[in-house]
């Protein structure tokens, strides 16, 4: 089942990376992904909360409940 491997590979290499987590409400969280579970519950470090592109809040650590998550986005690894 190669289609699933792509997902687990992504999940395995995502720890410690800078991510944007977008919620269904449209709120964005930018931070470093500490960990993730099967419900898409997420622990983020150095979290910044954005609403309409404006910074609203900062949290050192944040837990996000998975049901609110629309997507988790990473920028491509810069290959040097």
């Amino acid at each position, binding site marked *: 089942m190669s*289609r699933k*491997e*792509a997902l687990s590979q*992504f999940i395995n290499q*995502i720890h410690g990376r800078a991510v944007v987590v977008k919620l269904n409400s449209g709120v964005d969280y930018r931070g470093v992904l500490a960990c993730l579970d099967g419900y*898409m519950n997420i622990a983020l470090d150095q979290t910044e909360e954005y609403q309409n592109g404006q910074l609203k809040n900062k949290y050192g650590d944040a837990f996000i409940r998975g*049901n609110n*998550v629309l*997507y988790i986005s990473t920028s491509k690894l810069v290959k040097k």
Partner: protein
Amino acid sequence: MAQNVTPTNQSTLLPLELVDKCIGSRIHILMKNDKEMSGTLLGFDDFVNMLLEDVTEFENTPEGKRITKLDQILLNGNNITMLVPGGFDMSE
């Protein structure tokens, strides 16, 4: 007795097999809250959570249409309503 093998006739394609055939190509996704996504499908799981690359996100906001480009996303399958293999032209 051993009827638990796929009961299909050969011509039909299971819905998820269609999605499987889309791996590696562009796909357009319609979400519950009239949001849309377009990207290259890299993989998916049984919940149709999807891994997408070179994604464009289309949103309707009070200020008008908003387009966001994203490198790679893990999309929650929960809010997906429809998938269009091959993607389509959003310029109209």
